[in-house]
């Protein structure tokens, strides 16, 4: 099972309509994935020379203010940190690598769920309405977002194993299905310098795309290469800083529906998630073809 949703506004600045619409879509997918819920938002960009990182503390009651003070000593904290339950978003005036090295040394218990110019990633065990409310999704802005409700089949039900998986700057992936060659591919990608935090198959697909993009491929090119290199069942939805893409495996094992209007593109595992969007009734609606990359970029 599992449910995927994605909503991509084709133009305009980050809007507060994104959060409530994405929350409504996720809510419709609760029966498909009662184990955990996650979402990625592409929000306001960090200032030039800075990046955003979404950190997650495994234990409750984490002292984010103390971490912010420590980070401000070691680096430049550009904007006040925002806390949402177990997650916090920091905007730091530095390259990411030194910050991650510092975090690894001083706060090894923290997870980095996403980083980049715009991306923020939130995920946790629980039903979509509960998780959305935990992270205040209805009040969150963005230009596009992806979400996932998980019914685990392949690896453990934990926050770390929840989707979306983000393995490179501003890239994230949600997946319905399962991959069968992820172990060997993970070994190969590790040698290529891609970092993995779990034994999850989807994280390998995200890492694969990060590797291909790093080689200079376009998002479409990276997904076309994935058709040859990934073995298994999948419907993928992928987000980048200014892009959104969908790919299904060659026999289209897992369901998917796309809808497009002049203003937005939406993807979901079932149409009922799209039905909640304004203009859905008159949108163009179709099932994406197998082994075909669909992608959009912001104008």
């Amino acid at each position, binding site marked *: 099972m599992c449910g995927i949703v994605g909503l991509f506004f084709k133009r305009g600045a980050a809007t507060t309509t994104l959060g409530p619409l994405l929350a409504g879509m996720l809510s419709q997918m609760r029966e498909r994935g009662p184990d955990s819920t996650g979402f990625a938002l592409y929000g306001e960009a960090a200032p030039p020379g800075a990046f955003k990182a979404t950190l997650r503390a495994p234990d409750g009651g984490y002292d984010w203010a103390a971490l912010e003070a420590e980070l401000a000593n070691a680096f430049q904290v550009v904007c006040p940190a925002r806390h949402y339950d177990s997650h916090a978003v920091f905007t730091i005036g530095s390259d990411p690598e030194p910050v991650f090295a510092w975090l690894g040394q001083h706060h090894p218990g923290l997870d980095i769920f996403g980083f980049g110019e715009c991306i923020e990633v939130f995920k946790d065990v629980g039903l979509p309405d509960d998780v959305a409310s935990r992270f205040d999704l209805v009040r969150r802005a963005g230009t596009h977002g992806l979400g996932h409700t998980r019914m685990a089949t392949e690896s453990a039900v934990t926050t770390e194993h929840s989707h979306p998986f983000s393995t490179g700057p501003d890239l994230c992936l949600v997946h319905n299905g399962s991959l069968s060659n992820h172990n060997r591919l993970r070994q190969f990608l590790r040698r290529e310098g891609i970092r993995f935090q779990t034994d999850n198959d989807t994280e390998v697909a995200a890492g694969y795309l990060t590797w291909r993009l790093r080689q200079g491929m376009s998002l479409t090119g990276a997904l076309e290469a994935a058709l040859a290199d990934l073995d298994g069942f999948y419907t993928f939805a992928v987000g980048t800083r200014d892009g959104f893409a969908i790919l299904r495996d060659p026999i289209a094992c897992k369901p998917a529906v796309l809808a497009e209007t002049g203003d937005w593109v939406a993807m979901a595992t079932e*149409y009922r998630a799209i039905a909640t969007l304004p203009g859905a009734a008159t949108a163009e609606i179709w099932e994406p073809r197998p082994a075909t990359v669909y992608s959009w970029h912001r104008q």
Partner: protein
Amino acid sequence: MIEVDLAQSSVRELNQRLHRIGAGDNEHHWRVVNPNGAHAIAVGLTVPVNVEIRGHVGYYCAGMNAAADVVVDGHAGTGLAENIMSGSVRVRGNAAQSAAASGRGGLVVIEGDASARCGILMKGVAIVVGGAVGHMSAFMGQAGTLVVCGDAGRDLGDSIYEADIFVAGDVASLGADCVEKEVTQTDVEHVAGLLARAKIAADARRFRRYGSARRLYNFHVDRAGEY
């Protein structure tokens, strides 16, 4: 005209009302609004009523239909008119995969495109698709007719038994044991009749016919006594 608003009423309530219609009742015309992608709308109908659904439906709409005429004024999700017995089901938009799967009779019309596995295991249903069909359509088809006005995806008619497939556009590839066959005047008339019933404008003479080469059969009727 009886109108049911699925924003106010559940699919189960709608279907129970449709199932309670008696042979002599006068409730012949139903309109369903705000379907919002709900699953299993208007399944299991057994009396000759007209049901018009205004909007997009989820999975298994009009499944097991017998005698009723169901129209979806929108897109249909997976498994439209699955196991249809008789009557008709029409979709004005596109249909997701496995439309008319295992249908035994009746007519299914998809005015737009149908996705993969359209007419999978068809057993007598007539299917008319105004656009294209996806891969493995009419897989293991046993009886009935699939008419495709556009293109067909790869592995058309894979492992087909006896159904007839007519395609006006390009066929990406034929599946195991599916071959092109001669089109007779009877075939042209049959397709023309189905297009007329489907109210889809297309020239019946443009269609090519595909069906079983009968090389995968393990059972041969001439040797029935030996089994």
